Every structure is written in structure tokens, then in C-alpha cells.
């Protein structure tokens, strides 16, 4: 995996909550046995009209977002199917960072991202940033208000900065293990195989009705 340290690019909005992975990459594209080629199919059903032309009503198709590499959206992004194709599609369509709001606390807590999607992002070098709902609302307003707005992320420092008329920075929480992996571009399997001895000794004591 390519390491992620800092990134600066154009920020685009997708003002929808509960965007599911069926929307990010519809099923007809899951038939591929390759890991590449998914980019142009990201958000396919929203992005194109029936004859294949870009849908002028889909906000990410606006010319001002043509070169975007950061996305700000609403809560529970990436829910539904576990298909990693959704993350491959976003990565190959140029997205490096996705920002979504968390809401509430305790029993009322609603996260920015669905679990499997967020985990899949961490395996593909996409940084998923969760910020409070009012902060994300503020980011939406700034993005809508300024054409070509750039934003940058410093993962080491855990900061997101909007480069508007003046710079505006936000700090975000990040899982330490995922952060370390992204910063170094580590390969999970290679890492886990350094514990091969532990796996082997575990297997020796695991019940045989389980190990078949």
C-alpha cells in the first residue's frame, strides 16, 4: 500500500446521508476479476444518465469539482455491502480523503462511516476523517461558498485545513494502529506473518473438532 502522510487537493461535497456501497459501485461492475478499472464507474447510477452521458444534476459532475481528491459527505457513508470494489472505485477515481460527520454520543452515537467500508479504506490508503456534525456543516457551507476550494490533511498531526480566504484548521481523532499503517504504507499480511510462531502454537492447542 502507498503511504499517506500529507495531501492537498480540491474538496468536493456529496450532500447525502447513508450512501451505501451499492451506490458507490453498482453490482454490474463487481464481475471484474481485476483490481483496477473501477474509477469511471464510481457513483455510476447518479453520475450518468441512461445514454451514458454525465448527469448534470449530480453535484460531483460540476466542472468546479473536476479535479477533486477530497470528499465531504454525511453520516454512515459506505453502509451495506462489504464490497471492497467501492473503495477501489473511489481510490481509482482520485479520492484520497473522505470526511463525514459523527453525531450524538452514547446510545445515540451515529458514526461517519460504516465499519467494513472504513476498514477497507484503511487497506487502500484512503483516509477517513470523522468530525462533529456542526463542523462538517460548516465545511459544507465553505465548500459551496468558494469555487476551487482546496483542503489539506496532515495525518501525522491529525489536522484538516481548508485553504479559503484564510486557512481554517480542524483537528480529528484517528485510530493509532490505522494511522501508523497508513503513514508507513504497511502491508497487513506481511506484518501478521511476523507472528507466524504465535499462530502455529495457537493451532496446536485449538480443538480438533474445530480444526477438522
Amino acid at each position, binding site marked *: 500500500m502507498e503511504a499517506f502522510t500529507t495531501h492537498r487537493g480540491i474538496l468536493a461535497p456529496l450532500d447525502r*446521508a447513508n450512501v451505501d456501497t*451499492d451506490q458507490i459501485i453498482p453490482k454490474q461492475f463487481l*464481475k471484474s476479476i481485476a483490481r483496477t478499472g473501477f474509477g469511471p464507474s464510481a457513483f455510476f*447510477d447518479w453520475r450518468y444518465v441512461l445514454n451514458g452521458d454525465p448527469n448534470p444534476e449530480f453535484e460531483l459532475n460540476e466542472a468546479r469539482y473536476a479535479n477533486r481528491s477530497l470528499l465531504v459527505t454525511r453520516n454512515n457513508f459506505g453502509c451495506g455491502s462489504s464490497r471492497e470494489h467501492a473503495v477501489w472505485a473511489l481510490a481509482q477515481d482520485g479520492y484520497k480523503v473522505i470526511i463525514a460527520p459523527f453525531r450524538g454520543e452514547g446510545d445515540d452515537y451515529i458514526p461517519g462511516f460504516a*465499519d467494513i467500508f472504513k476498514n477497507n479504506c484503511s487497506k487502500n490508503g484512503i483516509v477517513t476523517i470523522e468530525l462533529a456534525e456542526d463542523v462538517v456543516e460548516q465545511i459544507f457551507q465553505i465548500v459551496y461558498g468558494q469555487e476551487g476550494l482546496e483542503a489539506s490533511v496532515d495525518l501525522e498531526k491529525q489536522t484538516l485545513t481548508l485553504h479559503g480566504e484564510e486557512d481554517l484548521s480542524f483537528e480529528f481523532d484517528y485510530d493509532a494502529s490505522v494511522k501508523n499503517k497508513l503513514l508507513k504504507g504497511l502491508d497487513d*499480511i506481511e506484518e501478521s506473518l511476523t507472528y507466524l510462531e504465535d499462530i502455529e502454537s495457537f493451532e496446536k492447542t485449538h480443538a*480438533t473438532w474445530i480444526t477438522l
Partner: protein
Amino acid sequence: MAKTLFEKIWDRHLVRDLPDGTSLLYIDRHLVHEVTSPQAFEGLRLSGRSVRHPELTFSTMDHNVPTDDSRLTIKDPISKAQVEALETNCKDNGIHLYGIGDDHQGIVHVIGPEMGITVPGLTLVCGDSHTSTHGAFGTLAFGIGTSEVEHVLATQTLRQKKPKTFKVEFTGKLQPHVSSKDMVLKLIGIIGTAGGTGSVFEFCGEAVESLTMEARMTICNMAIEGGAKAGLIAPDQTTFDYILAEDRPFAPKGEAWDKALAEWKKLPSDPGAVYDRTLVIDASKIAPQVSWGTSPGMVIDVDAPVPGLNDVPGYSAGDVQKALDYMGLEAGQKLTDSKLDIVFIGSCTNSRIEDLRRAAKVLDGKKKADHLRLMVVPGSQQVRKQAEAEGLDKIFKAAGAEWRWAGCSMCLAMNPDKLSPQERCASTSNRNFEGRQGAGGRTHLVSPEMAAAAAVAGHFVDIRDWNGGN
């Protein structure tokens, strides 16, 4: 210290805690299907790694498979290539494969339990979000992405952060004709599709204990629709009887059975075990559920009106408006007034023999409404065989249904079975997302009995007081 069912399974599978705060968790069973595995096998090849435990890896084809008589010859060249890639990958790596034409082919989450691959107390994963189904046995089962599929193939482990525990207790008894599908839809309607994120549900209470194994699988199947990592139900005599009831080739036998059973009996949560969150739902008050929108959390009692823009907890007025527009509905209208075009009975949620029996009981001696199409798609070839032995296929055909071969079919439209734009479908599947069953298609999620009754009436009815169309 008192432990929950989840904690017992987690502790039993912990290879070690890692310095980065994650845990290396041993995986007992790995199920594989054609859609989410080719890139994982390719990754193994590129890095020169091999499958660590092919004997713990089980594979079938379900998503791409046509369910009509053309099933043995896939016409779509891309689907065909994907299915062939799985054949090659399984052959090259010595992995069990129940492919097209095999007597045991079927939806991966139907054949696992059927073959005794799924038993209590395991960790089980698959590159498929509905892997949560297997939690019905008291086994920790969850969906993973393709990178993790590769990780399991290479190491037989996963790196995981320990999830939270979320107890969902269904008290009381269900009303007649109300099913476990209604229980789980009701739950998602309450907590929303992100309500369980980061947690493992444990379903319990009188209404859960009295469910059959297959009904339990339906609840756990849709745990992911509530955002949860997994759903669990404590194993009990119902579980053990289910495993013993048929010849399940991979279930423990003889001495191994005795050892396993002794372990399984220790699995239920200890009295006084603490959960991170608890929710109690009175099962006796649950009405048959119908989804009205484009998210499984957009669900109502069958006799309730379609909600207004500001009446749906967890969804903004804008989201509700988009959903109403997509579904061709207006706030205040009754779903019982909407004409249906297709009724689909199938999917990993509701395609097992009991689901088909319940649907057949409603359809027995009746005809589907003339204007609609009724599809019944068994979850596996074994389910199909059993249904035919019981004469259910005759009931379905006499009612005007198409009796199909096993596969995912119209649940996700990766195969020839799909909705056309604006077609309205009563579906026993799990997701009503935009375009899920075909671009522009409109999905209403319901139980098999509700779907069967809707097929006869031509629109939704309240199965509790329906007179059978007479």
C-alpha cells in the same frame, strides 16, 4: 468475571494482542464466493504466498449464477470468467468447491449451516456482509473486504479491534403470522442502519428462544443492516437438534461431537455479564413490517401510513424526500394501496425450507394476481430438492409462480434476474437500496408470508387479518 457469549468466543480465538492495539484473531471457517475472491487469490499469487488452511476454506458460486434452466451455461462472458476464475483458484489451492451443477451449490450463507460447516463457538468469515447470518448458531461471523479475504487465506487470522457488545432482548411472544423478519426490520426501524456500528448484537429473550434455527438465521442475517459487525444468538437445544437433524458432513461426529457439545453448552452469556448497550423490544407488539424507502431503516407497520418528511427518526427531510421520489410514493398513503409488479421470495435472508413452507402455506390452492410476476428461488439445491420432496414446488407452480434453481437471484441483480426501472417489488431479501434489484427498481422488504399474500392480493395486505383473498 461474568462473560458474554461474544467475549467467550473472542477470548477462545485470540492468538495474541498486538502492540498497535489490535488483536490477532484465529479464523476457524472461511467461506468464499466468486465475486469478492478473485483479487485476493491474485494477490496471493503475486506475493508468492499460499493458502494456509485450504481444508478450512469452503467455496460456492451464488451471485452470478442464473436461476433459470440456462444456469449451467452462463451467457454473460464477464460473469462466466468470474465463475471460471473461482474454479481455477479452488483447484489450484485444494479448496472445497460446490460449483454450478453440484448437488450442494447454493447461496453461501445457506449451504454453510446446511453442510455443518457452521456450528457453535467458531469464528467464521466471508467476503460478504451477510456472513452475520451464521451468528444464529452462536458463532462469531462477520463480513470482510477482499484485502481481508487475502489475509485470511494467507494467515488463517485477522487483525481486529475488539467490538462492543449490544444486547437486544425481545420479550413476550410474537403474534401469529409475524416472523423473525419482522423482528429484525422493527429493530432497524428503531436504531437505524448505523445504530449497531462498532458492536456485536446478542439477540435474546423469550421471542428469540422460541424461534427455529432458520428463523434465527433471518434475524442474524440482517444484523449488518443495523450497522453491526455481527449478530449472535446463544446455542441451545434448538441449535443442537438442528445440527443433528440431517446428515451434515462437516459437523463433528462421535467423540468429537461429545467434546464439541460440552463446549457449546458453556457458550451462553453468564448471568450478570455486562453489555455496552441494551435494548428491550416487546415482541408481542410487533406488526408485520414493510419497508417504504431506500434504506432498511425506512420501515413501517403494514397498517401505518407512509411517513412525512419530518417523521422519520435519523433521516433528514431531504433524505426522506429523495426516498419518496425514488419509490414513487407520497407521505400519508397506505402501502396496501400500491400495486406490485413482482414478488420475489428468496435470498440469503429468506430462502430456506421453512421460509418456503410458510410461503407455500399462504399460496396453497390460490393464484397469484394476474398482473404480477411471482418468483420463488430456493437458497440451495438441497433446499430445492427438499421442497420438491414435500410437493411445495407444485403449490408454487399452481399459484402461477416461477420455480427456480438456487442462487442470489433478484436480491442483487448480478445475474439475469433483475427489476426494470420503476417496477415495484415485494421482496424477502435484505436491502432496499436504490437500484439494488436493478437500476430504478423499487424494493419493499417483507417476510415470506407477507410476500406470498401480496402476490395473491396484487398489493400488500396485513397478513394477520387477511381472509386469503376470498
